[in-house]
């Protein structure tokens, strides 16, 4: 048996494995991924068939840019953080804040708590600088580097046949290389 072999040849690794298994079980029970204890539960809950799907699109003066013009990594950097930004703008405070408060408020000294807060929560200055950062990254990954670009929220409608909703709501608009 593998564990028996590990115990006889490298006891430190044996105990390391046991601790790792215990920690993995704990974080799976809590449902909180804490790397390196990965939780591979993606696509495991039922996904209902929908009439429409919300999407974030990049709109330039010459029309929409397909996110598939970018590589996966570039598209992740350009589009995955936009809903997070949108939520921060809507709520006026970081969605991580309640978790930070529940874990640390009144348990740490006020200066230490402030330091933790600054390290984990985006302040309004960071949120306000986000569109400029986005424009910088966008111009670094593709050819469009002049004009105005909008990030818009829209819907893809599956009925009667797949088409894009004519209505866009602007998340932000940014001037490239002003």
């Amino acid at each position, binding site marked *: 048996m*593998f564990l028996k*072999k*590990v115990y006889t*040849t*490298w006891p430190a*690794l044996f105990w390391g*494995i046991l601790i790792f298994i215990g920690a993995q079980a704990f974080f799976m029970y809590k449902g*909180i*991924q*804490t*790397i*390196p204890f*990965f*939780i*591979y*539960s*993606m*696509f*495991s*809950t*039922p*996904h*209902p*068939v*929908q009439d429409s799907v919300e*999407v974030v699109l990049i709109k330039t003066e010459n029309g929409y840019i*397909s*996110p*598939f013009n970018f*590589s*996966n*990594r*570039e598209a*992740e*950097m350009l589009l*995955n*953080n*936009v*809903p*997070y930004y949108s939520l921060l703008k809507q709520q006026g405070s970081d969605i*991580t804040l309640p*978790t930070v408060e529940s874990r640390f408020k009144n348990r740490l000294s006020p200066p230490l708590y402030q*330091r*933790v807060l600054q*390290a*984990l929560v*985006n302040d309004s200055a*960071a*949120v306000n*600088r*986000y569109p*400029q*950062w986005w424009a*910088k*990254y966008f111009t*670094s*990954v593709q050819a469009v580097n002049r004009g105005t670009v909008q990030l818009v929220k829209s819907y*893809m409608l*599956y009925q009667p046949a*797949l088409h894009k909703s004519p209505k866009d709501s602007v998340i932000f608009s940014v001037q490239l290389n002003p």
Partner: protein
Amino acid sequence: MPATPYYPRVLMARVVFTWLFLVLVYFFANNSLLSQLQQPVMIYPGSDNSFWLLHILGIPQFLLQQYWVALAFDIVLTVSCIICIVVPEQKIFTWMTVIGVWLLYICFCSAAGKHYAQIGYLLAPIPFLALRQQRFDLLWQCLRYWVCFLYGSAGLYKIYYGGFGSGHDMSGILQVMNAEWLVYHADTVQASVIRYLMNQQGLSQGLFRLATIVDLCMLVGFFTKKFDRWLLAGLLLFHLGNYFLLHISFIEQSLIFAPFLPWQRMADYVSVK
């Protein structure tokens, strides 16, 4: 001759770190090394305790927000990886490479606002931290069990949370993952296949269940190595299917295949040559 089968560490180090180097080149070509991210202003530690610890220590912010620091990090990581290819029997640069790729992962996820499951390039270099043959063998087997566990647990989660039992789960997933793609690539053969599967809920759910079974088959790896080539084929098909139907690239994840390769046969072949 050793009493138990051993893994050819030097050959494996050269292959795995060359593979990792190519992943880093892919990151560079796709503007996703730290110095290419244009100093992101927002962070997303999520609820991951390890991310929290590193963010409280200010490490991702330090690496992400200063160009020269990020550039130095990228250079050190890439050079360390190359040294691991050229000189496999050392520890210092292996440690630097392992720590480097984990930090790169955390910084990228924090800036991108999502914690990704593409982790093959994080796991495969770890066993090379051991120099002694026997210890390396044990760590490599641990890596193999870890990969079996990750995919096996993914299968169990799909049953536990109800995706497997649902009658239309895959159609819903295809809708979400292809909403934009179908608009921009409406006339391709691939789009026709995806649209057909969306409408044929029974067939698409059959594929989802097949994928779940492939996940669960990885649990066989806990009991025998006899079927490793089949597990490897299953993993490859699983990821090709994900790529074709859901557009999930698996270049970063591809190193997860390494524990199932026939290393001893490859070493024999190289030594005969």
